[in-house]
């Protein structure tokens, strides 16, 4: 079973077309193994991307160097998935 300890989901807000294209370029960096939950669309429209732990530092540096605004939407994905499983198990017990 694949687990997601340390994976974070970042919400990126491209401010202009240059930043939009820089975020789009991220899609092509296969080794980051990024999973775009919400793809790149238009300026100021959020892009949500799941970043595996091993790529987190590189991706954040990439964004910060380009002054691309982002926030952390999910701190640790596995924590959320564990909660989902717990909740489901609790309902079954109920």
């Amino acid at each position, binding site marked *: 079973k694949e687990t997601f300890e340390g994976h974070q*989901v970042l919400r990126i807000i491209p401010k202009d077309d240059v930043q939009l294209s820089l975020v789009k370029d991220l899609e092509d960096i296969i080794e980051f193994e990024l999973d775009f*939950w919400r793809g*790149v669309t238009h300026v100021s429209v959020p892009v*949500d991307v799941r970043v595996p732990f091993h790529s987190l530092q590189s991706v954040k540096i990439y964004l910060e160097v380009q002054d691309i605004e982002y926030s952390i939407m999910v701190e640790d994905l596995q924590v*959320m998935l564990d909660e989902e499983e717990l*909740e*489901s198990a609790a309902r079954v017990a109920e």
Partner: protein
Amino acid sequence: PRNTDSFDYAKYHPINEIYSFQDMLVAENPNLVSKIVIGQSYEGRPLNVLKFSTGGTNRPAIWIDTGIHSREWVTQASGTWFAKKIVTDYGRDPALTAILNNMDIYLEIVTNPDGYYFTHNSNRMWRKTRKPNPGSSCIGVDPNRNWDAGFGGPGASNNPCTETYHGPRAHSEPEVKAIVDFVKSHGNIKAFISIHSYSQMLLYPYGYTTTAVKDQPELHSLAKKAITDLASLYGTRYRYGSIISTIYQASGGTIDWTYNQGIKYSYTFELRDTGRYGFILPANQILPTARETWLALMAIMDHTFKNPY
């Protein structure tokens, strides 16, 4: 659960429980519900479609599917609730009764069963089908990029290791081909609604081109009516418009193909939420999501019924 009344709609269910729900619903409503198997998934699971019909032959029909992207669990859960809602409201709700006295409704709840099974047992984040890609170690195709509508164009990837891989050719995925064959053989489907999550949007074609569909004014105003009805329950705000103008360019998409088949009322929903939980929407939001979405579905189905073409 011994029957569909005691089925727990407020939790996420594994595939076997959804399959048994479907069989229970058919057994409880033999004069209204039947199950059609339109094909098999790559791993051999049945592609079950519930048919809601009060008679007639090849009546004009409405198609609804959920779960084509397997990790979007709130959609399969909502689809299960829709199935029960239809049998509960038929004979009680005048609008739905009128629709079903003249049209059929087809509902495919687990449109990507292999992927859905995989999300419960191996990888909760899985989105695609589970068919291996020759020449690649990466598995699966994005079933919402695999349709013969701008196939392979910008807005999909030709790399099997990405989430939006369009596949080796249009309709390569059995889960997609089964719907294509069904739609073509039925020939009288008047509305096609494919349900995804998340982002809270209601979208109509096209995604693969900026060319506006010829019915754009009508689809736009119907979308506005639908999201207004949706918001009337809990105030959930949706954006709406064509795929390419509202989100991004996406080629090989489901409703672009259905619209090009002549199914005018082709829509895609992106359900809750806007990103606080994303695909991991807590189960306590299943029922409110399903209830508000139903109001939008009723707006589209009612309009389809009252505007035959």
